[in-house]
C-alpha cells in the first residue's frame, strides 16, 4: 500500500496494491487508522486501481475505516474500482454510505 498526504489540500490517499481478503485486512486497517489519526485529513481517498481481488473482508474493512474517518470529521471516497469489485460493493450497499467515484477507466 502506498500512502500519500497532500498537506495543501488536506488529502490523504491510500493506494492499495495488495489483494484484499481476511488475511490482508488487519495490516491495512492498522496502517490506515494510524495515518488518519495522524493527519486528521479533510478527505481520505482509497485508490483501487491496483486491487485485482477483494472479498467480503474488504466490505467490513471499509465500513470500519469510514467510521473512523467520520468520527474525525473526514470525508471518504473510493476511486478506480474495477467491475468485479464494484459488484461486491453494490451487493453490500456500500455506495449508499461511501462515495465511489466513477472516474476510473477500468
Amino acid at each position: 500500500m502506498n500512502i500519500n498526504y497532500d498537506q495543501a489540500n488536506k488529502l490523504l490517499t491510500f493506494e492499495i496494491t495488495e489483494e484484499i481478503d481476511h488475511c490482508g485486512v488487519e495490516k491495512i486497517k492498522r496502517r490506515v487508522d494510524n495515518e488518519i489519526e495522524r493527519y486528521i485529513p479533510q478527505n481520505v481517498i482509497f485508490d483501487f486501481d491496483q486491487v485485482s481481488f477483494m472479498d467480503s473482508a474488504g466490505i467490513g474493512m471499509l465500513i470500519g475505516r469510514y467510521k473512523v474517518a467520520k468520527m474525525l470529521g473526514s470525508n471518504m471516497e473510493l476511486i478506480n474500482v474495477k467491475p468485479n469489485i464494484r459488484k461486491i460493493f453494490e451487493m453490500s450497499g456500500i455506495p449508499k454510505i461511501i462515495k465511489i467515484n466513477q472516474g476510473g477507466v477500468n
Partner: protein
Amino acid sequence: MKTKYDNEMNLEILSKSCNEAFARIAVAAFVSGLDPTIEEISDIKTAVSEAVTNSIIHGYENSEGIIKINCKIDKRKIIIEISDTGKGIENIEIAKEPLYTTKPELERSGMGFTIMESFMDELKIESILGLGTKVTMMKTIKENTLD
C-alpha cells in the same frame, strides 16, 4: 482416484488465513481448462475465498484445523465442496441472511453466504453442530462463443 467426472482434484489446507489466496488460486487454475471469462473466474475466486474464510474464522475460530477442498468438473459444470470439522452452524437460515454476522467485533460484514449465493449458480450448506460444515457450490461455465 476413480471418478465419474471429467476431472477432479482434492486439496487439504491448514486453517491459516494466509492459505486463502492459495486456495482460491488453486481452484481458479483447476477450472481454467474450461476457458472461463475473467468475470467467471473472479466470481469463483471470491466465492471460494468466502467459504475458506468462514471455515477459518467461524468453523475453527482461528484454532488449527484442516479444510478440505474438492473440485469436480462435469462437462461445463464446476462443483466445489469446501468442508471443515469445526464447530458447525447453529441456524443456517439466519447465517445466510445478508449482513448477519456473529463476529461484528472483527468487522465482518455478514456478506459471505450472500456473495457465494449470488456469484455461483447453486449453493448448498450442510452443517452439524460440533461436527463441522460442508459448503457445496456449483457453476456452469458458459461456452465461449468467440471461437
